[in-house]
């Protein structure tokens, strides 16, 4: 049996990769994928904790998170597609009309 700590360590690494991805990448789609990675890191942590505590709550939580993530993809991709239609770019550095 794999110790819970290993799963948690993996989840923490995935989460940090996600955060760093959001902060350093400039392509809206890649940023979005990094955010999904953060959500999945949380899912892994939920499953690991659920097994450690012998309760199903954490695993049920994962279903909710996956549903929400799917809804988020629908909305997010629609916004990014609309952006591309208007501006022909998905690089967030070039999206700078609003500032001050």
């Amino acid at each position, binding site marked *: 049996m794999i110790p819970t700590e290993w799963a948690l360590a993996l989840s923490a690494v995935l989460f940090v990769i996600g*955060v760093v991805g*959001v902060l350093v990448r400039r392509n809206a789609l890649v940023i979005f994928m990094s*955010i999904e990675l953060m959500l999945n890191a949380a899912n892994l*942590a939920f499953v690991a904790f659920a097994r450690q505590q012998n309760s199903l709550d954490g695993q049920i939580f994962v279903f*909710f998170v996956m549903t*929400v993530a799917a809804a988020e993809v629908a*909305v997010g991709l629609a916004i990014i597609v609309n952006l591309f239609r208007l501006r022909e770019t998905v690089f967030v550095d070039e999206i700078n*009309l*609003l500032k*001050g």
Partner: protein
Amino acid sequence: MSIVPQPTFLALDWWALGPVLALTAGTILLLLLEFLPQRANGNRGGIVSLLTFLASGYAVWRVAGEKRELFGGMFVHDPMTVFFTLLFCAVGVLATLMSWDYLKRTKINQAEYYALLLSSVLGMVVMAASNDLVTVFLGLELMSLALYVMVGFRRSQLESNEASLKYFLLGAFASGFLLYGIALLYGATGSSNLAMIGAFLADTPLATNPMLLMGSLLVFVGFAFKVAAAPFHMWTPDVYEGAPTSVTGFMSAGAKAAGFAALLRVALRALGPVMVDWTQLLAVIAFLTMTVGNVTALLQGNLKRMLAYSSIAHAGYILVAVAAGGPEGASAAVFYLATYSFMNIGAFAVLTMLGKGREERVLMSDLAGLGFREPLLGLALTAFMLSLAGIPPMAGFMGKLYIFGEAVKHPQLLWVVVAGVLNSVVSVYYYLRVTVSLYMKEPEGEPVGISWGAPAVLAIVITLAATLWFGLQAQGLWIQAQNSVMGLL
């Protein structure tokens, strides 16, 4: 999550779930109605959404005195749920009224707008009624996903689209933090139910457990983003400026109140036993939020941007009340949220009327001389600005009085109260700049056309009445606010 089944589902429970059911049904109905042809000048969406909000408000008001836990303790019906549900229904009604003619003149009058408005309010209601981290997360996402789309509703306009993208990316990023924080809290305490986490923490000294600390911190970051607290406020001005004005008004009041409602529930109910360690951190964040908001607002020439920074500053004042903690601090925060919602929506309702057709005239210079050309509109805007600045006899003054009055009882918070009062003085400058523009500046260029509309005027009248009433007769609302937090402790 306790899996103790509720023995029976009483008629009372149906009423308590009324807002959730009505808002869901309203959303679906609005989308289905699109199959039927509509009169060219009709506003079916607005009518359906008004009726839905009224029905939701009635349902929850009918069983206002009851207390029930539903769905295995994940959804609670208690005085706080009632208070915030009524507030969100009022915000929804006002948002519908100010959108009525604004959407028509900016050519974005589509039923989806009202469907999104309803589902966003549904998310807020779920957040305020949640007694479990799962429901907090679901409510927050339901509210936010609808708002991301509403912000980008003028989808052929570059600014609206940009605002939507920024709000979406940063909002989803913050959700990621919140979710990971929830996972850690669940791991540290073995439950996602707020009451059970609270009970666990009261028995087991875990205050220095790194998993608990990290989890609470990440959850707080998620909420700080939603209520626009420094240093997670960067998105606010851009999103407020780019969004359609009616959406800005709605989200500035609704999303902030919902974020604070859920934050209060988590902070008092689940993390109550360890909150004492958080007081100074919250005070520092409150200080930063107030100062950043107020100082940056001084420099703004665009009214929507100025109100965005002002909303950051107001989040700071409310955080002072959260830092004070306990039932008094929480009721001061609840009181402030209610009054702030009315005065801020009022100010935005005036802004929706500025400009003809698709144009948007929300620069400070556009207001020049408006106070004499449109005396009533000028007077209303002045009243909202005075209230936001916290000048008696307006509601904003009473709100600040309660917050600082409660916070000053804690000696360790004295410094932040002094900073808060100084901040209010600074804020008077930029709120009065609006009044100076209205009455003392000569108009340059083409004067602003006013798009009069009965619904928007009604929204202004309601918010103005509430702003004055809660300022002069604050006691009634204060007692309601105190009642609402009783169940939390």
